[in-house]
């Protein structure tokens, strides 16, 4: 369920891209500080987006400084530190969500994967307790969501009802980001459609796998004659959600990070839809090769001018 909310790199300005990277690295550092080194593994693009959204809405101050990556100490990187709640909230959400996602894996997977997930989950237990202490409402909301999700799956619900628990969770989470009543209303809707979009794209992305393993997926009932048509249907459902999400987003008053958040909403979502639904794995490889070819071409060009 993670990693779908990210900016499209090609549409970012270089300084925006560096700022984004610095928030990502800063969140990793903050996770390490708050919950210990193991919790750094929970770092995700979605929580980076949450940190930026929080900072933007609460107009919290950020400082960028030089640092070194803990995972790869040879790599220098910029680290962003945000004064206020943004990083702590995003870190707590990251830890809590990962823990419950692992619990979900334990419940649905085969023996080997289950045992693996159990071991990793045990490592996160301490972090979860700490996060739950700082943000008890978020933990109870997530627990509620997991239960509601189970009920939805048992009832073999349609797309809307299956997406509802995740959507509601994000709705509650986003509502927390403002104290102004009107903004809360907007954030509630924004969060709802954001959660819905994440759930649906995750379901569409896993469709093939779920059909193979006979797992629950709301799109199984909605299958069309060919896989292509099914994916077109998934895309339409996502478009509808994105349109609503953008309508709510446009009513938000954002400060810093607005350009990056705009990029996620206007380009990132569409890019992810294309990537997950219409580009099969072989094509992805093909794209990588194309990129390499472009690189070769540019080196060739620069080499060519030197020779002249």
């Amino acid at each position, binding site marked *: 369920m993670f990693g779908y909310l990210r900016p499209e790199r090609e549409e970012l300005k270089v300084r925006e891209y560096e700022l984004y990277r610095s928030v990502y690295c800063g969140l990793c550092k903050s996770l390490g500080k708050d919950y210990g080194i193991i919790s750094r593994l929970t770092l995700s693009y979605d929580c980076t987006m949450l940190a930026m959204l929080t900072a933007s809405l609460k107009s919290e101050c950020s400082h960028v400084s030089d640092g070194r990556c803990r995972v790869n100490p040879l790599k220098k990187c910029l680290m962003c530190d945000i004064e206020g709640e943004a990083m702590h909230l995003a870190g707590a959400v990251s830890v809590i969500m990962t823990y419950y996602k692992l619990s979900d894996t334990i419940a649905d997977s085969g023996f080997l994967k289950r045992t693996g997930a159990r071991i990793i989950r045990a490592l996160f237990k301490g972090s979860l307790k700490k996060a739950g202490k700082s943000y008890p409402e978020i933990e109870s909301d997530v627990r509620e969501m997991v239960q509601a999700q189970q009920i939805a799956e048992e009832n073999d619900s349609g797309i809307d009802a299956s997406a509802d628990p995740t959507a509601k969770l994000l709705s509650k989470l986003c509502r927390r980001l403002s104290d102004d009543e009107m903004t809360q209303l907007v954030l509630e809707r924004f969060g709802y459609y954001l959660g819905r979009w994440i759930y649906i794209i995750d379901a569409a992305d896993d469709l093939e796998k779920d059909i193979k393993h006979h797992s629950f997926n709301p799109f199984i009932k909605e299958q069309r004659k060919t896989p292509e048509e099914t994916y077109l249907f998934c895309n339409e*459902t996502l478009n509808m959600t994105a349109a609503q999400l953008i309508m709510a987003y446009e009513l938000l008053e954002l400060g810093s990070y607005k350009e990056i958040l705009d990029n996620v909403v206007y380009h990132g979502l569409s890019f992810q839809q294309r990537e997950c639904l*219409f580009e099969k794995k072989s094509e992805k490889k093909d794209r990588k090769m194309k990129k390499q070819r472009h690189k070769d071409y540019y080196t060739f060009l620069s080499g060519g001018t030197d020779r002249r």
Partner: protein
Amino acid sequence: MKDPYQVLGVSRSASDEEIKKAYRELAKKYHPDKYNDTPLADVASEKMKEVNEAYHAITAERKNGSPDSSRSSAYSSSYDSSYSSSYSNSYGSSHQSLFDEIRAMINGGNFSAAEEMLSGIPSDERNAEWYYLMGVVVYRKGFLSDAYNYFQTACRMDPSNEEYQSMFRRIQQQRSGSQGGYNASSSSAANDCCDICTCLICTDCLCNGCR
């Protein structure tokens, strides 16, 4: 009141043209028709009012050389979001009064009660209006796929009704990806373009090599 320049997102030194452009963009963004039938209609119209006031405050200030707030309110357009104008009586069934009651509930913002009443109507007595109203209720809740199906059924049962058609068209437009998301049908054309470009670049490359 907020600084009108800040509301429009322009600097104090911006030209009249720039202000007009910023105003037009914001007015398009917050246009009440876009938010019709969503829970954010009130917020959007509030923003629209703010933008209108800011624009007129700036134009008045520039004309007279001093801020003039008394005129600004006269300009702000009022927007009526109620359904009353578009009542349809094409069916004239025994449930008409009940449907009117449900519409009143929807206008009043009492969606769960409206949904409960709609669900209480037995399935063989469900007409186009039932499907339309049910669509409106679940659309507000965020159940977009169900809403799409309801509106589709309503349009199929009563193709001549403009109210159902316009709602269905709106949702169809959203599904196409023109208002966010990914438009899958245009992708093949874009790919072809890219291929042509790559071809040209490669040819160009060869030409450079020859020189």
